[in-house]
């Protein structure tokens, strides 16, 4: 349950930090750290307008999107502490829960019958399909390093497993950051701040959502970021430290993660849409390299 609460706390500040960093780097003061949540609260109080072409799918999709994320949060471990819902292969359920949310999200975009949203929906479908293997190879690598198949056991044993861990973990953390950026439709692949519908992915899919539904989607996206941040934090938090230190490492990791995103988005240009699939597939091949590397190292060690 610790990670569940931690993700909630982090999510409060996460979007604010990204926004602040982006403002500062572009020479502005920037809004209050809690401003994104204030916006969400305003949205929650607003009334709604629905497109008359839509059906019940459009109405339930945002709810399912956020519940899948909440359920995925239940599976996230923290520094090897015992998890109520930890079991063998929990990361498979984790990935597939997020996929279920995306499935409904794509359907809700297509439900409007809009040519823009169709465009976003099919890009999202393609990119999330392409990024999935990278995530699974990454999990496969750490499962191989530790010999366990549940996230809690993997992270409890990862750093102790062998001393090559630190070499490989650099690649893995890099990959995780990139995967998090793609899964949350951020910079090199998608830019949430762009104002041309033709070049957007995630934002174009929510053109017709408003009020309560839009708030749910934004909360979901924020939580998803915090989940990936927790994932990265699990790589760096040593398991045998007192909890106060672990918590401080956790929060500093999350802040650094948010800052990295802020900096990346400030100084990096978005890729051409045509180049995106190549970029995403290249992540899988990097992950594959990490896997083969750890396999080689493991067998060398055993000999």
């Amino acid at each position, binding site marked *: 349950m610790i990670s569940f609460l931690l993700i909630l706390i982090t999510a409060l500040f996460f979007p604010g930090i990204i926004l602040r960093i982006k403002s500062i780097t572009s020479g502005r003061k920037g809004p209050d750290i809690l401003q994104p949540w204030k916006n969400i609260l305003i949205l929650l109080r607003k009334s709604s307008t629905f497109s008359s072409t839509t059906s019940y799918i459009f109405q339930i999709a945002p709810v399912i999107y956020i519940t899948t994320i909440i359920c995925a949060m239940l599976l996230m471990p923290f520094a090897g502490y015992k998890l109520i819902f930890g079991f063998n292969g929990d990361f498979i*359920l984790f990935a597939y829960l997020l996929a279920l949310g995306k499935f409904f999200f794509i359907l809700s975009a297509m439900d409007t*019958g809009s040519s823009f949203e169709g465009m976003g929906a099919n890009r999202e479908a*393609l990119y999330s399909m392409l990024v999935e293997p990278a995530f699974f190879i990454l999990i496969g690598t750490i499962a191989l390093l530790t010999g366990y198949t549940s996230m809690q056991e993997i992270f409890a044993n990862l750093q102790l497993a062998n001393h090559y861990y630190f070499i490989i973990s650099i690649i893995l953390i890099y990959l995780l950051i990139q995967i998090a950026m793609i899964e949350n439709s951020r910079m090199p692949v998608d830019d949430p701040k762009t104002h041309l519908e033709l070049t957007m992915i995630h934002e174009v899919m929510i053109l017709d959502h408003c009020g309560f539904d839009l708030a749910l989607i934004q909360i979901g996206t924020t939580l998803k970021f915090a989940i990936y941040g927790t994932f990265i934090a699990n790589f760096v938090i040593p398991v045998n430290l007192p909890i106060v230190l672990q918590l401080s490492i956790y929060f500093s990791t999350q802040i650094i993660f948010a800052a990295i995103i802020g900096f990346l988005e400030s100084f990096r240009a978005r890729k051409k849409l045509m180049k995106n699939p190549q970029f995403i597939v290249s992540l899988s091949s990097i992950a594959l390299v990490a896997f083969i590397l750890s396999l080689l190292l493991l067998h060398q060690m055993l000999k």
Partner: protein
Amino acid sequence: MMDFLLILPVVLSLLILIISSKLRYYFALFITLYVSVISSIPAISLLINFGSTPFVFYIFSTEIIIDNLSAFFMIVTNFTMLTGMLFSKGYLQPYLSKKSSYEIAIHYCNYLLLHVSMLLVLVFRNGFAFLIAWELMAVSSFILILFEGEKRSTLKTAVNYLIQMHIGFVFLLIAFLICQSETGNISFDALKIYFANHNNSFLFMMFFVGFAIKAGFIPLHTWLPDAHPAAPSHVSGTMSGVMIKMGIYGIIRVLSYVHFDLYLIGFFILLISAISGILGVMFAIIQHDLKKLLAYHSIENIGIIGMGIGLGTIGLGINNPLLVMLGFSGALLHVLNHSLFKSLLFYSAGSVYKNYHTHNIEQLGGVIHKMPKTAAFFLIGSIAICGLPPLNGFISEFLIYLGLFKGLTTGTFHNSILMLLAIIALVLIGGLAIFCFTKVFSVVFLGTSRKKMENEVNEVGNDMLFPQLLISLAIIAIGLFPMIFIKPITIIVSGLFKINTDSYILSITDTFSKIGIISITLIVITGSLIILRSKMLKKRKVNYGTTWGCGSANISGKQQYTGSSFANNFSDIARPLLHIKKEYNQISENEIFPAKRSFYTHPEDVFKKTILKIVDFLMMILKKLARLQTGQIQHYILYAFIFILLIFILMYLKFI
């Protein structure tokens, strides 16, 4: 007594030809029920008691054995055949006036024969009896496909189907005959003796090819994407749901006797299944024909089942009972799951066809507003087939995933790489399936309609919705309470391959009860949030307007994404593997006011093209040889003389 009980349905199904057309459906339903009940009683009692002693009895001195594996497949068969029969009442309604009474009677008669023959395939152990049942299955399904035989394409497809089934049959026959010549006996049990003393991989390959044609493994699948769309929907549902699974049954049955080379065989099955899975779903994405698309998904799911079997066989090869249990349990559970969601999808596609008279998804759209219940069933089927929680498809894929990850962590160097590649294949299959079903569901059911309908479309009747409801409940039950279904399956597997799995049951129980809890949590949170949302919206003023169109309020159905445009960015990437013919004329430079244009895409099956090339080559040679056939008796006598002379020379030279 037993003889009588088993012969009765065959006689009764022939009786259907003379019964009055009003009572015919109810009579057929009665026989289906009778057959299902009489065969399910021993099957269920076997699975509930976890009894390892199979039922053995004789009809006409032919041995019939119902063991755990047969029992499992029998229950799957009975359920799907029953829902198919229930669905057929509404689906065949429009045909009653078009078709003659005899054609309908022959259809039902063959439906029943298909049911009986599949059950017989599962219980016969004697090779000849098995092959006769196998043949009966092929012929009855051939006549079922031929239902709309007045269409030339259907006729062609059906004959193609019959030929391919017989190629498979020949492989099985030869395999059994090899076994007989070596052991003097022709039955599955004789295989045990054969495999203990001879080279295993060759005979297994003969069986595998024979069974794989039925199951639809790529590249032996070419009959499948044509035959399923040609048949009426309840037949495609049952054919795809259970008939192709007879191939899987055969493979598992033969595997249970194999002694040596298990690692190699497992590797081979895993490889060909991964290829089938990925290519199957890739071909599916580019289809426009709804039923053809579903047929390609059958190939994909056969691939997933095969990956489970391959994993289990590798487990047997390296002596790892956990892999055996996870692999084969995943495969068997996926057999059940696929029979459920695939028949559901075919039935709801049939409902759409009944009202819109087209399978072309590019002409549909906005069906959810006219047929909300059918749309809901199709949605359930889509989520299940994509392997997403909380429905049943996830559970079986999870078992296979877990097995692959376990193999990854425990295996050797080669094994780890193999398992990782299999994981990537399974992930890709899952991702592509999601891509495909978001496309199908949204193009067919969401948005607005693309074609003007002449008459008002309404939801189909309750008689067609009821079987879909039954299947949906089963799908949800497996998703939410997986343990109830997995436990008997692990017992089947451990009995069949004689492995001890008791030590793993505890961790499996823990895993699946937690998955069940999370699935239920998911549903509870979703439900309560939906209630909260509707309460919030009730207090506020909700407006309705047109979809935002960049300032334009004149939105028409033509602006929506079509199936082709949704698949476009995928087919760009996958172009080397797929063949899509585009048919359009480009806008020329001096065309200031563009004329009206059309755009069509025609997806083609690469394998079918290759096979056709080989066939064309053979035809060319045969045509040249046909010159020998002059029709003059003197020439034939000359050939006979040359032949005798040839034998004489060969004997003289001591070649023969």
